[in-house]
């Protein structure tokens, strides 16, 4: 239970701060004495947080589904021809800077939520795909052979043996992907998506450091909350599936 305490606490702080930012007005006024408006008000922080989260969750869900499906297909006998290409693309794709991918989505899809979602899915897919392939390819062939030899069907081998064994690595891929996507979604404000990046961008444009701070603190908190959530998830996974890890 102590594992879940840090993410829970961070989440409470994050939500509390988003709801009660106006309370801190005196503090921000001290930081930014020369501006009339020191609390960002073109959208409530809770709404921005919710929208930011929604973008990340949708892209993570779609990305995970697509990447795991793709990874499985490319490692089956029928799709094995595509494996070298898929793994090459997964690793080359990750050298593309996320900002550049985001920027390239705009000419194709225009401004707003659509291009950012597209870019987040596409870019977030790559680390998951890469880890899925690494996880499935990394399984000792003897294990797979033993499962087949004892009469499991290919589907059973996949569901009961391969996916549980590769799951930990896939989870790590999802963590990487979500971390990157929280950051990229924040930059998405520049192409018209409503996220926690909005106050930062607005503050930078107007020279209002208070706005920048509010956005930056909330983005940072969101990232930390998510990261500690994944930390707890990974620890739980380790305890359940690898007894040595639990003893250590």
């Amino acid at each position, binding site marked *: 239970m102590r594992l879940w305490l840090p993410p829970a606490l961070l989440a409470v702080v994050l939500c509390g701060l988003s709801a009660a930012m106006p309370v801190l007005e005196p503090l921000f006024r001290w*930081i930014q004495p020369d501006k009339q408006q020191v609390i960002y008000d073109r959208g409530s922080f809770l709404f921005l947080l919710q929208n930011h989260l929604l973008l990340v969750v949708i892209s993570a869900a779609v990305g995970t589904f697509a990447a795991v499906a793709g990874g499985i297909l490319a490692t089956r006998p029928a799709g094995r*021809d*595509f494996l*070298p*290409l898929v793994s*090459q*693309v997964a690793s*080359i794709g990750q*050298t*593309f*800077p*996320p*900002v*550049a991918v985001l*920027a*390239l989505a*705009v*000419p*194709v899809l225009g*401004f707003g939520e659509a291009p950012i979602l597209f870019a987040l899915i596409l870019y977030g897919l790559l680390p998951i795909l890469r880890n899925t392939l690494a996880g499935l390819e990394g399984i000792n062939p003897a294990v797979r052979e033993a499962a087949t030899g004892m009469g499991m069907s290919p589907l059973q081998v996949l569901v009961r043996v391969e996916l549980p064994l590769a799951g930990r690595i896939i989870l790590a891929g999802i963590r990487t992907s979500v*971390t990157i996507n*929280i*950051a990229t979604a*924040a*930059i998405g404000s*520049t*192409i018209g998506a409503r996220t926690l*990046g909005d106050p*930062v*961008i607005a*503050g*930078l444009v107007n020279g209002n*450091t208070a706005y*920048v*701070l509010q*956005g*930056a*603190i909330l*983005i*940072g908190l969101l*990232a*930390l909350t998510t*990261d500690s959530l994944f930390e707890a998830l990974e620890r739980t996974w380790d305890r359940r599936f690898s007894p040595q890890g639990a003893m250590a």
Partner: protein
Amino acid sequence: MSVTGPVASRIPPNRVIPALALSALVLVWLLDLGTIQPNRIVAGTGHGLLSSLGWIGAGLVTAVLAASIVLSMVPLARRYLLLLGLTGLSLAALPLLLEVFASRHLPEDSPYARSSMGAGFWCLLFLLSLMLIEILGRLKTRRSLQLMLLVFVCGSWLTLLRSDGLESLSLVREFNGQGGQFRQALWTHLALAFGAVSISAVLAFVLALKMIRNTAWRRPVLGAVSFLQTIPSLAVFGLLIAPLSALSSAFPVLQSLGIRGIGWAPALLALIAYSLLPMVRNTFVALTEVPESLADAGRGMGMTEGQVFFQVKLPLALPVIIEGVRITTIQAIGLTAVAALIGAGGFGSFIFQGLGQAAMDLVLLGALPTIALALLADALLTMLAASLKPTSARS
């Protein structure tokens, strides 16, 4: 036919290239190959393959794609070499399509009119690149050959883009419009990214050594650098503004050095902070993973600690350290683009200016070179790491 029988069984048909080429064929006929805009901002009119290139051009594109499908199916011993030649040449000659398109459709009397690449062209470029990657993978070519191919394709693109025929291309127009600023952005981008990488490399080296000598440093250092890595870049840039502007107003000396809340100083600082995690982790892991038995063998034969470090540990750790430099460099090139938001310059300034003005060609002028830089750094550093590994023919 009886002769080709056994050969055919040894060379199974490739299914990947036909799939890619077929998709390319469908997309290039369905989508617009190019667009003509009357000026920079107004939306243009799209032209399909046939309208863009005429019967001859469209036929040629179709023929090349069809030929690659056929080549990948027939059991020829040298077919991947043939495919490599075909795909490489097509990629290198791709801007010619734009040249033909511009010459057919650009109105001659309007100086502001520009042609730009349509979705069909981008798809063709993307799928041809995938085909090339697939072919190179099947051929198991050396990295130096791959680099030569890359240089050939890029060289051909640069030459064609600078030729007279493509003057009207929006990207070229935009580049000419920016003039010296492009070069300026390139240098700023490079200086920030490589400055951050080199400074963090030195810092990481010192930290890694500290962690190796003193185990008490390990957890706090790794914890701190992964904490820094978790905070999104925009937040870090934002969080640095207030303290740095406070510092610079308190100490005018700093201000005269150009250190302010926005600009290169917070950008460099944030980039270094980001670069520390991959650098420290790889350097530390690389140095600790050199088997202790090897260090012992060195000591046992009379090497001093210094000789053990510089002659045994460091050379063996170098490929993994370089891998860290590679990850860091790619990351830094991408983050430098974000740093343009706090006024650090570089290619990111084109991206965000373009987004602000809804000038997509300016966005491309920023995004494409950023990607190119990242890919180039990736290729060079991968090659460097590979060349430093001792030949591992058999284990």
